[in-house]
């Protein structure tokens, strides 16, 4: 029999038997009013989750289930009775008795304006989700003036490595790539937000090329990018040549052959060639994340 030592606080590895989890408690439920309907949700539920569970589709851009909410895009705002400003549904927790309106005139105006402000300053041509929202809310970004009148974030594409490109003219600054590169997934910290105000941007230190940065090419930033600002070099090249055609593509789920973890790969093929690899967010172990091998280690297959 081994003697169990006092816990070493500096090095808190489990030394004894594995901890036993307490039996699951039924979560306390609370009642809120959503667009006039009484809804019962578990305590700790966000307004976004509450709305979704009630079948109310709430638009999101900077939110992703696998990342910490940063509530910066403000497209998910809803109106909470008694609150002066609108609140972000993605991070605001439901409170008992809260009366929430998800489709009031104020809410619709804010959502439309957020889309117009974004689309008037950012190239959203490879962001189908934003385009769909713009149709839904009747957004007309040209109200702010044609090119030359309204300032944009237009800039040259950054192509500094073999695997992926960074086209920050398409960046809406949703912070997702920074989160995926940081504590929410990869813990590499190769990129961060630099600058301020309209000049705020995603950058390596002193804007050094990726090969000089801490980047490990896991591509998890590409996996979370909602606008195509971060893109496989293969996809970027095909789009430029006019060859990219999603109607001709098929997606096949398989298991990564490289190591024992067994990550799920979704292989995108066009004309019997692999054009990119993603991983499903719903996969409970990897939550959409891969490493350089899984995400990029297939190009040799096309070279037969």
């Amino acid at each position, binding site marked *: 029999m081994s003697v169990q030592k006092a816990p070493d606080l500096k090095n808190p590895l489990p030394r004894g038997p594995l901890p036993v989890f307490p039996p699951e408690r039924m979560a306390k439920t609370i009642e809120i009013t959503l667009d006039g309907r009484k809804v019962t949700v578990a305590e700790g539920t966000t307004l976004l989750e509450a709305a979704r569970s009630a079948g109310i589709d709430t638009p999101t851009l900077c939110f992703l289930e696998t990342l910490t909410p940063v509530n910066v895009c403000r497209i998910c705002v809803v109106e909470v009775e008694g609150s002066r400003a609108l609140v972000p549904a993605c991070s605001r927790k439901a409170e008992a008795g809260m009366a929430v309106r998800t489709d009031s005139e104020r809410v619709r105006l804010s959502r439309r304006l957020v889309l117009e402000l974004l689309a008037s300053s950012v190239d959203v041509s490879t962001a189908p989700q934003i385009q769909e929202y713009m149709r839904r809310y009747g957004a007309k970004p040209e109200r702010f003036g044609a090119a030359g009148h309204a300032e944009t974030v237009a800039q040259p594409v950054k192509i500094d490595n073999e695997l992926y490109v960074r086209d920050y003219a398409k960046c809406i600054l949703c912070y997702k790539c920074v989160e995926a590169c940081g504590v929410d997934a990869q813990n590499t910290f190769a990129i961060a937000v630099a600058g301020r105000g309209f000049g*705020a941007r995603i950058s390596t*230190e002193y804007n050094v090329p990726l090969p000089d940065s801490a980047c490990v090419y896991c591509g998890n930033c590409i996996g979370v990018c909602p606008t195509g600002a971060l893109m496989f070099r293969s996809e970027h090249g095909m789009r430029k040549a006019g060859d990219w055609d999603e109607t001709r593509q098929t997606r096949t789920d398989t298991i990564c052959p490289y190591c024992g973890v067994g990550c799920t790969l979704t292989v995108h093929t066009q004309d019997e060639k692999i054009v990119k690899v993603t991983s499903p967010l719903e996969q409970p172990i990897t939550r959409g994340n891969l490493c350089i091998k899984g995400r990029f280690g297939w190009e040799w297959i096309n070279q037969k």
Partner: protein
Amino acid sequence: MDLHFTNAAATPEEKAAIDAVVERNGGEAPRRSLLLAVLHAIQNRAGWISPGALNYACGLLGVPPAEGFGVADFYALFSTREQAPAVAHICDDVACRARGAEKLCVEMEKEHGPAGTNCDGKMWRRSPCLGMCERAPAAFVTVAGPQATEQALGAAHAADIEAALQGKRFPAGGAGASAPQWGQKAEQGRLKLLRRVGQTNPDSIEAFRDAGGFAALERALALGPAAVLAEVIESKLAGRGGAAFPTGLKWKSAREGAAPRYLVCNADESEPGTFKDRVLMEGDPFALVEAMIIAGFAAGCERGYIYLRGEYPEARRQLERAIRECSKHGFLGGNILGKSLRFEIEVCIGAGAYICGEETALLNSIEGRRGEPRNKPPFPTQAGLFGRPTVINNVETLLNIPHIVLEGGKAFAGTGTERSTGTKLFCLSGHVARPGVYEAPFGITLRELLEMAGGIGGTGKLQAVLVGGAAGAFLAPGELDTPLTFEGLRGAGAALGSAVVIPLDDSVDLRDVLLGIGGFFRDESCGQCVPCRVGTVRQEEILRRLAAGKPMGSVASELAVLKEVGQVMRDASICGLGQTASSAVESALSKFAIFKGRT
């Protein structure tokens, strides 16, 4: 954390400057919270934040270099590009503009070329409000090197700025210019917050004691924390930083959280036209230390931070000296006045970011991060600095505390109105005969206040009064009888904010003022949320087109779009900056025919 660095290496001078800060601060706070102090040290030594110096600093503090760069690149007083070591920041904000700032900029351009260009190791640039409005036009001059200097000059002349750029040191300005009211005998006995400013030597702890200092601390220690808290609640003291939140409730809420708790004094006074906190800190620094010890005692905080804006070098000198003296005399540290009370104060220096006056952005800044506001809830009293319960109070708010302790909450609430209790400091600048900080009981009207300051200056004909700063609103000459209280101004569709009062005479082009305000918010938006990041840009673009008489479509259609941009900034921005970025513009457009008939 496994960090990756480029090959860039720090110079021996940069290393020494960084090491000195890290060695000086061996406290228990996370090392990352030293980042701003370290970046200041690099900037002061080398004149910019070089890749090598940043690598070295990030290695010592365990900060990924990309994040360190993001922080350095956020603050206006840090430069991530090599630049001239001597820099003159010339204020061109509303108050200074009304008193010759543009002329000064023209002179600077003649001497040193266009703003931002290195001319023989010297350069100048335009700056938002420097908090020296009573001595407009103001300049802030920094010279990097082994004997770095930082000086605020006002009223600034081109020749003095030139001398400061060459390293000459000027004596700090006199309190008489900043608080002209103390010279008026009739007011002398009635002043509370200003009573020692200009009267008592701010360098001397003995002079402070002789003038009644520390009496409130002794009484507070005798009363006990619960009784002090009860008095503050009864006083109905509301925050003086702009939001007017009840101070007592804030303390109570923080006290209910688990220790360790922190007290943060918000001294990042950056609302254009505001300079009252600077005058208090320069003129009565020991009073702030005393007030913070009492606040920490009552709210259950063992550690206090003063977040001071980087453009206030004299206030910094005074506060650091006052803290040193208080530690020496047993008012700070482990055993205050022989009681088992522990309290320490650290001064953190901001680096040129209006947004850091927002309380949660300020917390991030102390923690060594970009000054981006946090989402609320949770509120700082629940999860604030380093995630702990935190009380954040403005300088002027805190300076009311000793008076409440001495006279009792009920008596304090007897001054002012039912909902705005006590006296208030007003910052008068622009076209007023005697600019400065004035103290008056809440309820004084705008007209009475302007008379107290000698009436309208400039041409003598009043056009408009900007109340509350860039985030405030304009009042028309017909609204001079508005009582200056939280509720009175709300009734006039304005807000007291930080009690800025800038009268403008009829020679001022309000279009210029609005353009200045539009540009200010565009420059000072942190960039985090879409409504503010892009909305402030679109607001400025529309104002520019209207001011140039070249609207897109018609004036009416431009104004309609401007109104919608204003509403989404107010409704959907994360913090108070975006939520108020359109308020002055909207109030001016509703009260004055600024762009009418300009199609």
